[in-house]
């Protein structure tokens, strides 16, 4: 799957629980993500998908259990945590581009300030990445001057600039106008083909069918079903998943 063919999973969640006060939002989650795998997490809103995604770079802390990334338990805080985060890209539902920085600066900030890359090299790399996501012409604009779809593609370039071992996508197309969804999905499909390890929380069933290696169905804080996309969409094993699919695949 990857160039070094390493068989150990990149991410392993072991008996992960999370409570928000009296709310039990993640219940005994056990999950692995292999290197080069594209894992799609789907399920009803409030089922814990985003929370699960956000625990992997510790934007959400967990109550118990453990998360192992690339052979090491997630650091709790400080420099070690910052280093881990620099190796895990994240693409948010609301893009979260740095509003006071140009598109180019958004992409170069991490490499320059976190990795210590020289500015020239970072600029050059940024332009390559912006080229790849089709935004190179807008490099000197500010985020607010771009459409949602363009902003999200920049956010992907920003994540890629850190040369991450994995990218987390937290509902990357949910805040987009319908006509902009495809341009973002196309970039993501390209990444998947290139062997990027991805965890994608999404409602885009088309993306799941085309690009996913595995689908995880989450509801009420639990992983209800794990399957290949084909099996999942045509032959879901659980009532909960069949019920969910019947509501979204109406035609």
């Amino acid at each position, binding site marked *: 799957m990857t160039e070094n063919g390493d068989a150990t999973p990149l991410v392993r969640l072991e008996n992960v629980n999370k409570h928000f006060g009296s709310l039990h939002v993640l219940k005994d989650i056990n999950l692995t993500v292999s290197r080069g795998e594209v894992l799609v997490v789907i399920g009803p809103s409030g089922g814990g998908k985003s929370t699960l995604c956000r625990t992997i770079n510790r934007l959400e802390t967990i109550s118990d259990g453990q998360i192992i990334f690339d052979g090491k338990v997630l650091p709790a805080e400080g420099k070690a945590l*910052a280093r881990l985060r620099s190796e895990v890209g994240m693409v948010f539902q609301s893009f979260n581009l740095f509003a006071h920085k140009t598109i180019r600066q958004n992409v170069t*900030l991490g490499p320059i300030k976190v990795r210590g890359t020289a500015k020239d090299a970072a600029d050059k790399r940024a332009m390559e990445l912006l080229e790849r996501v089709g935004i190179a012409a807008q490099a000197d604009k500010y985020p607010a001057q771009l459409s949602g779809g363009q902003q999200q593609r920049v956010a992907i370039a920003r994540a890629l600039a*850190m040369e991450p071992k994995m990218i987390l996508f937290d509902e990357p197309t949910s805040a987009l106008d319908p006509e902009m969804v495809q341009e973002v999905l196309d970039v993501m499909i390209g990444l998947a083909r290139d062997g990027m390890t991805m965890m994608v929380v999404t409602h885009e069933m088309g993306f799941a069918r085309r690009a996913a290696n595995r689908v995880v169905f989450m509801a009420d804080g639990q992983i209800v079903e794990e399957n290949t996309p084909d099996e999942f969409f045509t032959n879901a094993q659980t009532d909960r998943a069949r019920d969910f699919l019947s509501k979204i695949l109406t035609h």
Partner: protein
Amino acid sequence: MDDLITYGPNLAEGFLNNVKLSLVAAVASLILGTILVAMRVSPTPVLRAAGTVYVNVVRNTPLTLVLAFSALGLSDQLGLVFSETPRTNSFWIVAMGLSAYTAAFVCEALRAGINTVPLGQAEAARAIGLTFMQSLRMIILPQAFRTVVAPLGSVMIAMIKNTTVATAGGFVADSAAEMKEAFDTTGASIPIFLGIVVGFMVLTMPIGFFTGWLSRRLAVAR
């Protein structure tokens, strides 16, 4: 009008001291206020608590008492001396007290600004591996600062006018002190009042206009 001419040089010298105090306090309070706000939003509970206590104590104490404490408590009792020359020493005592006082307001203005920066900005900063201090310095504070340029201008205007209570800290060479001296000698004089008012307006009104213009120019589009 004669009074204004007679006392003009003294008043002008006093006014220059108001300007000097303002300059020192502007720089020092912006720096200290930024440090305070970093403490108030830091993940370390001890720093947060210290920042909160400082702001609430200093902001709610009358400036005259802060200055009196600087002069009587810190300088006379605890022996904090900036200079052997009494006038220079009292200048720095007052500048310090005024900076410490104004910093609390700067901190609160900046904190209001931080609250306008969407949480996602901080999350994105953390997600690319910036440390807390880096994300504060590069992402959060620059955006917060831009949204509170105008309120910070108001804080600075208030601070400049506050230099006229420098006497409370033992510094008796500012324009208000010179004015009082003139009045004690020759009686109250409307031209002197107005002269000082105009002096302050010349100083403060441009700040209001400038910060208003700057805040529109720097506004972060979302």
